[in-house]
Each structure stands twice: as structure tokens, then as C-alpha cells.
């Protein structure tokens, strides 16, 4: 157990999803009282987002195959809550060494820390489609939140498009909830999945779940097309989405009528705070995106700053729980605190399996980089600022901008409210294709404060 002196070591955890909760739990068991800062009003993060008070659906209805894990996490947090300093509805909008800048309900405050553990999670990863700015286009995660947290479908007739396990999970959740699903359109061809099978066998349970979801969709007679290429989201300005057009694997054009599209290609990590803290990022070849550069236990390149979960490396919610425990143990060891050896080994072993599995996922459901080069010039890359692929390409050809931040300065891609979350990666692919260089060389958008938009009402309240 921690000594009294150690108990004054200030530990701040950012994020109350699976990684943050398991991390806090492990530290509490070792005698610490961490501060847990949560942007949301309730714990759970995204995949285990809790429904609002007054909602009555069961865990089985809400979380399906993940119900047990969701309940276990929520119960853990409820037990944990009195033993931590929990700050919900609080955004960490900036930081300086040893100090977090927080805002809650328009009031700014600071949180001093000796150790910082970033468990900031992920968002959907998007590749633009021509027309995706039309009202009625949502991310896959957004479609799932609509159902889970608000008991609504995003439309009267929904198309699910993209790739990754989430595509099938959300589509089948919609079917089970009684929504009308028009089609599931997967950019990844069957061949990729077959090739990835050996790696996916690392977690046979998950593989089986995936097949179950597919079976559910077939039983409900939902058309599922693999190996499609998105051609466009159809509709017009005032009414929004009216359909989706794709090219099927056999070359034929397919148009599906719908009034809502849920689009996504797995996840991208929220690394802005880590970036502001000066942590190094590393390009992950398998998923073709920039991850936090941490050691196997979650130490970043900055002393005193740790990270776990999808906000560091996208490996899913199960991995996030293990990584949360592991990073807490890394911190404990760094503080010369005892750590249970078998517990540590369990997390490490579990994560090894998940590392192998996620490589399989990346192979089975690859990020469709080639779509970027194929985007028509008129297709919008940056939804916030309405910047087209053609405008972005012109900054390469006419202004020699072959790097993301430079191209952003000239084209405005990434200058909008979303701060590059939904456009910057695809923008980098467009630049790479136009400049004929590997996407890694194009770099990544530099993180800047505020991490999310900061109201001009924000003030420090003098005590």
C-alpha cells in the first residue's frame, strides 16, 4: 500500500472510459486517490456510454453482446466513485507542464499533477465521399450513440457504409431495435477478411461475434455488399440525403435509397492533449495513422505523462481495460510501489493477444487510402470549411504544399471547428496522392489549444 507521503503524489487521469476507469481502480487499490477528469456528464466513455437517467432499457438491449462488460465497468466505477476525485462535465482544454487547464460550465480552473495519465479515447475515422456534407450523414459512432443514448434511429431508412467491425455491430443493433436498415456497404472485399483469418483467430470469441452479427443481418434480409467503392451521397441541399451510390465489386453501379447514412472506417485516436504535452507520436504502418509513441506499458516520451486506451493506440475497448490497468501498474512501479506480478503478467499477455488481433482487423478492414486520390475534385474534404479535394490538390500543384500544416495554411483544410478530426487524415491522403509521396511524409496536423472549442464566456472565478 502507498505510504502517507506517496499519497500526496498528485495523479490526474483524463477520461472515464474503459481505460481511465480500470486505471483509476488499480491506483485506488494501491492506496492512491487520483483525480479523474471526464468530459462527459457520466462515466463510460463512448462504447459503454450510459443512457440518461429515466431511460429504462436493459443492458442486454443497449449493449447486446457487450452487456456483461458494460455492466461490470459501470459497477466498478460506481464502487470507485467515492474513492476518487471525480470531475465530470469538465474539459481539459490545454495544459502546461504539471498543470491541466480545465473548464466546466464556463468556469476555468487548474489541476496540478505530478503524474498525468491520458485515456482520451478515439473518434470515428472518416474518408470523405462526394456529398457527405449533406444533412443526414453521420459517423458510425454517431449512429450508435443516437440509438444507445437517445433511443432514436438517425433516419427512416438508414444505409451503413465503411469498414470495420463497428459497421456490422451498429447495423445489427439498429435491426434489433426495429429501425429500417436499407443496406450494409463494406469497402473491404471478402478476400481481405479471408487473408486476415489467421490473425483474427487470435480472438476466436470476437471472430465468432462478428460472424453472428453477419448472420443476424442476413436473417433480416439486409443486403450486405463487400468490396464496394463509394461513389457519392445523393440528395440536395434543403432536404439532405436521399440515397447512396456505390460501385459494386463486380463493377456494377448500385444506388440505395435512404434518408440517412452512417459512415466510418474504424477509429482514430484523440491525441491533442498528448501533442500539447509534447509527447512524441509514431506512424503506425498497419493502420496508416499516427499513434502515441508509448512503451509497452504506456509511458510516453515525456516523463510523468502516461497514456492508455484508444487515445494512445487503437486496439478496442477490451484492450483499453487491460492497458488501463497496465499503465497504472507502470506508474506504481515508477513510484517504487509494489505491483502484483501475476496481475501485471495477465495484462501484458492479454494485450499481446489483442495486438495480434488488431493487426488482423487492420488487414481485414483496411483504411481505404486509395479512395482519397480517386475523389472527384468537387468532393468536399473539409466539411466545416467546405473545402474541396480540388482546392486542396491545387495547394500542392500551385503552391508546393506537400505537408499537412502547410496545406492547411493555404487551403483551410483543418481550420474548422472540428479542428481536423474528420478531415485531416483524409486530407493528408489527398496531398500524398497529389504529390506522389508516402502519406507518412505528409505529416500530421499539429495539435493546438483549445482541445475543443472554448467559449468566450470562460472565466476564472476568484474564490
Amino acid at each position, binding site marked *: 500500500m502507498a505510504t502517507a507521503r506517496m499519497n500526496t503524489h498528485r495523479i490526474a487521469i483524463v477520461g472515464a472510459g474503459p481505460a481511465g476507469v480500470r486505471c483509476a481502480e488499480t491506483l485506488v487499490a494501491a492506496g492512491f486517490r487520483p483525480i479523474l477528469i471526464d468530459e462527459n456528464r457520466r462515466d463510460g466513455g463512448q462504447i459503454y456510454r450510459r443512457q440518461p437517467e429515466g431511460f429504462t432499457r436493459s443492458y442486454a438491449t443497449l449493449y447486446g453482446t457487450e452487456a456483461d462488460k458494460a455492466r461490470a465497468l459501470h459497477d466498478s466505477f460506481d464502487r470507485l466513485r467515492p474513492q476518487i476525485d471525480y470531475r465530470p462535465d469538465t474539459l481539459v482544454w*490545454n495544459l*502546461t507542464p504539471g498543470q491541466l*487547464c480545465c473548464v466546466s460550465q464556463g468556469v*476555468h480552473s487548474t489541476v496540478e499533477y505530478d503524474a498525468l495519465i491520458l485515456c482520451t479515447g478515439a473518434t470515428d475515422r472518416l474518408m470523405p465521399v462526394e456529398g457527405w456534407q449533406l444533412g443526414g450523414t453521420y459517423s458510425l459512432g454517431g449512429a450508435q450513440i443516437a440509438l444507445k443514448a437517445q433511443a432514436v434511429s438517425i433516419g427512416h431508412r438508414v444505409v451503413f457504409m465503411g469498414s470495420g467491425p463497428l459497421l456490422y455491430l451498429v447495423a445489427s443493433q439498429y435491426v434489433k431495435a426495429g429501425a429500417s436498415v436499407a443496406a450494409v456497404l463494406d469497402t473491404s472485399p471478402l478476400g481481405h477478411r479471408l487473408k486476415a483469418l489467421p490473425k483474427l483467430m487470435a480472438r476466436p470469441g470476437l471472430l465468432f461475434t462478428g460472424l453472428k452479427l453477419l448472420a443476424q443481418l442476413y436473417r433480416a434480409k439486409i443486403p450486405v455488399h463487400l468490396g464496394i467503392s463509394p461513389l457519392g451521397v445523393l440528395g440536395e441541399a434543403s432536404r439532405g440525403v436521399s440515397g447512396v451510390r456505390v460501385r459494386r465489386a463486380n463493377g456494377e453501379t448500385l444506388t440505395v435509397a435512404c434518408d440517412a447514412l452512417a459512415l466510418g472506417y474504424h477509429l482514430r485516436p484523440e491525441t491533442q492533449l498528448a501533442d500539447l504535452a509534447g509527447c512524441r507520436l509514431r506512424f503506425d504502418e498497419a493502420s496508416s495513422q499516427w499513434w502515441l509513441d508509448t512503451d509497452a506499458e504506456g509511458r510516453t516520451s515525456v516523463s510523468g505523462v502516461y497514456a492508455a486506451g484508444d487515445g494512445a493506440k487503437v486496439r478496442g475497448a477490451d484492450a483499453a481495460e487491460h492497458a488501463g490497468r497496465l499503465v497504472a501498474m507502470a506508474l506504481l512501479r515508477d513510484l517504487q510501489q509494489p505491483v502484483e506480478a501475476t496481475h501485471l503478467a495477465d495484462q501484458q499477455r492479454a494485450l499481446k493477444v489483442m495486438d495480434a488481433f488488431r493487426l488482423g482487423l487492420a488487414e481485414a478492414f483496411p483504411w481505404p487510402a486509395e479512395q482519397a486520390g480517386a475523389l472527384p475534385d468537387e468532393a468536399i474534404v473539409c466539411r466545416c470549411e467546405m473545402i474541396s479535394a480540388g482546392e486542396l490538390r491545387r495547394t500542392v500543384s500551385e*503552391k508546393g504544399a506537400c*505537408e499537412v500544416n*502547410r496545406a492547411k*495554411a*493555404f487551403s483551410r483544410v483543418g*481550420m*474548422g*471547428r472540428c*479542428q481536423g478530426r474528420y478531415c485531416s487524415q483524409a486530407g493528408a491522403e489527398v496531398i500524398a496522392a497529389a504529390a506522389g509521396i508516402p502519406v507518412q511524409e505528409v505529416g500530421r496536423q499539429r495539435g*493546438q*489549444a*483549445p482541445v475543443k*472549442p*472554448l*467559449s*468566450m*464566456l*470562460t*472565466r*476564472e472565478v476568484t474564490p
Partner: protein
Amino acid sequence: MTVQRADVVIVGGGLMGSATAFFLRQRGQSVILLERDQVGQYASGVNFGNVRRQGRFLGQLELANRSWALWKRLPELIDDDLEFIASGHMRVCYREDEIAELQAYAAAPEAAQLDLQIYRGADLHERFPFLGKDVKGGSYAPHDGHANPRLAAPAFARAARRLGARIEERTEVAEVHKSGDGFGVTTTDGRQFSAAQLLITAGAWGEKLSAQFGEPVPLETNGPQMAVTEPVPYALPTVIGVYTKIPEEVIYFRQIPRGNIIIGGGYRSKPDMLNRRAYVEPRSILNQLEQMRRLVPGIDNLNIIRVWSGIEGYLSDALPVMGRSGNVDGLFYAFGFSGHGFQLGPGVGDVMAELISTGSTSTSIEPFSIRRFASSAEQRSKAS
């Protein structure tokens, strides 16, 4: 390895360097510009974007006026308007006694071309109804305005290139020296350049080079503190800045037609010169929010979506170093514009090109001579 020669080598690809390269080419001089990173990456690209004459040191207005005439002609000169809008600029104050200071400036003969108009009280609040009630008076410059700093230096560099200038990015100078009646420059990738004349427009790094030629100057580096809001309906065309002696109150903002409001000022940060990065301090942001709430009360519902900083060079007297070297024939300087260089850019380029190619310039730049630091430098070296 062959030595690459030109009439003029320019070290530093910010706005001053690329504008001078352009105007030198117009005058038929061959030019090689060497930029360590990318053109316009530092002070030139991150500043507020004020195309402002009022408020300058009166001895700088002649240069500013020359520059202003060029701003109007940018589309015909460099085929790019840099999003320049002559929207008018207001310097406002919170104290009655400061209005007299604004009036004194407006009455100065050097400021005649600016057509400054003083507003106060009810007239001011009628003309500018969005200003907070603490604003007591202001000086309005109808011909001043703003432009997009991120575009400026790159646009000048492209125009210079179209005229035949050689612009070498990602090219770091390792060493410069006087050789014969010219200059030799070696870059870190081993290339060699030579020219009869050398211009240092290396911004915050200018002092490193001037010191090598025996002309150290008291330059310090600062990071401007910039913030921008989400786009909101275009309602504030005038650039507004606060005239005050209290540093935290010195903020300024401009709204662009797309709707974003860019805010600057209040504090400065110390850049990380090792990694060539600068940051915005949280206290700067909070201060700007507070100051903006006072200046434009209606703004308090908007959101800041991004902040940025950069690296600027400031001389101890807040005036640039510009003109001939005091020691070395054929050596010229234009750096250290102390956070107010943007509007001067085209003018500096034009003046330096004139000076370098003809031997003199019709515009007064004597107050910016590097020689003004010479005696104190001599005293320092005598004392040491």
C-alpha cells in the same frame, strides 16, 4: 561543387526577404534566396494580419505610406490580393485623457495621408455600436485594413520565382563570410553560393548573422498570442485595436468575410528557439477572452477554436534594423520588425531592392540603421 552565383543572395525567406527578391528581379538583379524551413513559416505567417499605418512611430510613416500604395496594387504586381481589405482601422481607448494622445498623433504632419478621424462618446457608439461602454474614444483610419499573413510571403516568393529568382527552401545557411568584394555562403547540405551583395532578412535569427559581421544588436524573441473564433455572420468590418499603456489591455481583433474573428495581443510568450516552436500560454487566452468581453460585449457567446503563436524578433527600441551595414560594404539588413512588420512588407521589399540595386533609396529609413546600436556595442566590448 560549383559555386552558384547571383547579384544578390538573400538569407531568410519571410515576407521581407521574398518581397525584396521580387522587387530586385523587377529591377533586373539576379537573386538567390535561402530559407532554412519554408517561406513565410515564422513571423510572417503567424502575425495578426494588420495592414495598419496609424499608431506607428511617426518616422516610419513614410515607409508605411510607400508600402500602402503597393498593397493596393498587389493583384497587378504579384497576381494575388492576399485577401487585403481596406476595411478601416480603429484605435480605441478606455480613458478620456488618452483621446488627447490620439488627437495629437492625428494632428502630426507625418500622419496627414492617413486621414485620421477622432471619435468620442455618443458619436463613437453610434458609428460602432458593438463596442463596449468602457470605450471612451477612438482614432479611425479609413484606408487601413487587414490581409491574410499566411499567404503573403509565399505569394511574393512565387511571383519572384516567376520572374526568375531562385528560391531555395529547406536550405540552411551554415556559414557566411566576406570574400573579395563579395560574399560567400555555405549551406549545411554543402552547397556554395556567392554574390556581390548580401541581404539578411532572417527575422528573429537576424542578430546571429549581424553579430558575425561585428554588428550585434539587442534582439529578443517573442511569441505572439493569437486566437480565432468559429465563423459567425460578418458584422465587424473594421479592425479594432486598444490604445493603452496597460500591456494586458493591448488586444486587437479583425473579422474576415468568412466570419472568423482573429484576436491577438495581451501577452507574449517566450519561444522555444531550439525546436523553433512557440506556444500560446493559457493565461494569454483567458486574458484575451476577458479583454474581448469588455471591448465587444456581444462576443461572449462565441467559441475560440484555435490558438497559435510563432517567432518574432524585437529590438530593444521596438524599431527594425533596416539598411546598409555599418561595417561591411555590400551587406544589407531588414529584420527585427518587432511585431509590426506585416504592413511594411511590400514597402520594405521595394525600398531594399532600390537601395541594393541603385545605392540609395528615396524613402527615409535612417531611424532603422543598425549603426544606432554600434556605440553601445562598442561600450559593451570595451567594458568586457
